[in-house]
């Protein structure tokens, strides 16, 4: 029993931990600060396992279309500026996408970054670009305040 405990502690001591920040960058205003559309209500962030292939398009992400394995999704109000921690994520290649929605769940800004966590270098940056996609939640339902629910549902 002692040997097993010792072995566990020895091997576990070999693990290192790297925290990656996640930055969502909207277009810039004249003063260099983020320029968000006035109608923007919420941001939807989606993390998808992507060993192969490219980022989903804005329309695919907005409709929660199948694209890799969805590992995490969250939505937070623009007014709060920050969501909740995504948490421990296995190494490998991931697509991190973000949608800025208006109250009717139309998409105003979209960005996606493909990254291998081993090469991320401390931060994952998602550049958001203006798009114009009318109310789209796929098989989910818009709550009228910019959130599609259930968040984690993947639609055909």
């Amino acid at each position, binding site marked *: *029993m002692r*040997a*097993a*405990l010792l*072995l*566990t*502690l*020895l*091997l*576990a001591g*070999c*693990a*290192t*931990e*790297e*925290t*990656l*920040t*996640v*930055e*969502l*960058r*909207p277009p810039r205003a004249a003063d260099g600060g*983020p320029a*968000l559309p006035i109608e923007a209500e919420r*941001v939807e*962030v989606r*993390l998808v396992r992507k060993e192969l292939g490219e980022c989903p398009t804005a329309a695919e992400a907005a409709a929660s279309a199948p694209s890799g394995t969805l590992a995490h999704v*969250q939505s*937070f109000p*623009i007014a709060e*500026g*920050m*969501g*909740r*921690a*995504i*948490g*421990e*994520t*296995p*190494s490998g290649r991931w697509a991190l996408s*973000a949608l800025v929605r208006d109250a009717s769940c139309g998409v105003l800004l979209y960005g996606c970054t493909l990254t291998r*966590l*081993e090469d*991320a270098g401390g931060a*994952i940056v*998602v550049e958001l670009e203006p798009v114009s996609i009318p109310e789209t939640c*796929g*098989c989910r*339902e818009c709550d009228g305040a910019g959130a599609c*629910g*259930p968040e984690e*549902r*993947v*639609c*055909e």
Partner: protein
Amino acid sequence: MRVATALLALCLTAAPAALGAAQADPIGEAEAAFEEGRHEDAERLYRAALESGRLAPPGLARVHLRLAELAALGSTGAADRHARFALALDPSLALPETIAIDARPTRAARVVLEISGDDAPIGVRVADAPDGLVRVLEVRGAGFERTLSWDGEAREVDPPAEARPIEVRALDAHGNLVAQAGRAAPPPEPEPEPGPTPEATAGEDTPAIESPWFWVGVGLVVVGVAVAIALSATGTRYLLDAPGIR
């Protein structure tokens, strides 16, 4: 050891029983609040039950009927919608006098499968469901799963022959079951492994716990689990921080 075994047994039997009792009647508390005239509490509890996504007819019909009655006390718009949903789920429901419906349905909402051949695509549609009641169709067969959005137009699925028969569940926006059709084949039962012969088992007079082989086995399991945990913890672990607008 006996105490630990007894506690474990108690946990394994009492916890599911308590959970089962709590899940058996998800609208019981709401019904009690409604009967006692606590309308705000009742509405909150009915909505919580609806949003739980665990309801199915007739409970779902009951919740929509109650929400219609509660809405009728305030605004009539939502009352009409909930009443139409309730009647689509159970056309035999009696509506209170406070709610008037133009046309009462004669048949309940149902899933219709159109199967023309063993390998032809299967047509899927929902009949007699008012707009907005069904949002999602879940299609399942052996090793086959599809989630289709429902907007009132018939859909087609083309599961491989080995995935048939299929089962289709029509769900509302919260995941509650509205109707279902078909039946997925049960997973194949694994071949029973030949058990040890009576001669090969330990003698009935000697409890297994007193056998040295038992403790050798326990030791190997403990070491194996320790190695597995330790190996899974090696290497670099990545913690993704909260996404922020910058």
